[in-house]
């Protein structure tokens, strides 16, 4: 019988900087996961990508074991990079902080396609455009 999932935990943290402080400590402690083992492995696998936000998706099994895979950077991070802005708008419906082209949205959607639950590239682009809107980043043709 297949090992059963207990939880899927995703940590959005900076490459090479995992440590036992929140959010990692409280996120993993409750599942009985060896926090230092995770931090050591994550940092080893991401140390060559310092400065990037690299999410780790951790599968926790009912017997206490776990595995994790690295995911593509969050869409918000990629959009900020594409729009060359430091952060999203605090008032996204009014104050626009930057612009990205539809081509840039397409490139981000292609990069993130495997991590999104979109059925096709069109659907993935719609999700990325939604994230852009929520950050006050305008999508132009």
């Amino acid at each position, binding site marked *: 019988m297949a090992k059963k999932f207990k939880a899927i935990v995703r940590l959005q943290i900076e490459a090479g900087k995992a440590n036992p402080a*929140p959010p*990692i400590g*409280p996120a993993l402690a*409750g599942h009985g996961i060896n926090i230092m083992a995770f931090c050591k492995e994550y940092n080893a696998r991401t140390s060559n990508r310092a400065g990037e936000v690299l999410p780790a998706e951790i599968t926790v099994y009912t017997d206490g074991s776990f595995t994790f895979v690295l995911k593509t950077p*969050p869409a918000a*991070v990629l959009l900020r990079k594409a729009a060359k802005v430091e952060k*999203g708008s*605090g008032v996204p419906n009014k104050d626009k902080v930057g612009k990205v082209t539809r081509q840039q949205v397409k490139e981000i959607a292609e990069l993130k396609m495997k991590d999104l639950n979109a059925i096709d590239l069109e659907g993935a682009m719609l999700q990325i455009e939604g994230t852009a809107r929520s950050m006050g980043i305008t999508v132009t043709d």
Partner: protein
Amino acid sequence: MNWLEVSLTVDGELAEAVADVFARFAPNGVMTEQGIKFTDEEDAGTPTGPITVRAYLEVNDQLEDTRQKLEESLYYLGMIQPVPTPIYKQIANQNWMEAWKQHYKPILIGQRLLILPAWMESPDPKRIPIKIDPGMAFGTGTHPTTQLCLELMEKYFDECHPEQSEGSQMPSRDSSLANKRLAQNDIKVIDVGCGSGILSIGALKLGATRALGVDIDAESIVNSRENADTNGVGEEFLLGVGSVQEILAGKFVFSKAPLVVANILAPVIIRLFEAGMADLIEDGGTIILSGILQEQGEKVIEAAQAKGLKLIGKRQTGDWVAFSISR
């Protein structure tokens, strides 16, 4: 330092936008967690349904200001898509490196073994404890390949000494020789690619008299030595850097054993058969192989059969399989 946990449960599409807002105010990072749905008892589970996004704000002089800014950002995000009200919870600072241990549960293997960390007392004195600190690598007892290998080893030793296992059947042709060996106190084990040493430690605790563990990684030898000492089997556990060739060349105390174990990946197992791994098994002996994905199983069996060996047992968990093969 104490923390204020802020959480929001939203649908999948909104989760990333909420995580981005949280990330602006919680520079250490953000976590998300999704529920699991099972279609039937055999189903491993599929993440589904709403996603809870959590972040942790430091409790300091700026907390109220930070909280207000965060709520403002969520309010504006809510003007694009409805966002529920965030939930706050005070989190006292603690030693997170130790906190996870309170939630750790020992792992039951087969009918007689129990893997538990060095700091924990055994909750089941009837089971044989193997003390290994948990991690995520092969060989800490949490990986299916190690568990499968230990299960097959337990079966091997049960056949050697059936009175130790309640309700076990009198074994097949292989057991008479194994039984005789145990009575003669002569069960040696060779552990190829010993890693943490968990398999040799398990074998020694199940009744083996001596174990030889080899690994091409010197750090594994150090780790195995520590684990052997923790488990009180340091004297019986011989260790050295090397592989099949070094054992066959007589570099170690013995070069054949009635039980050989190898929990390595399938392509490596196949290469090791080419390098003479079958010659490590005494006549009538057994090799237990693990670290094999289901789709690789056939090739491993073919490699063993090409050396005149015969499949006598199989265990499977998920995609992983392990084999008992006799000479």
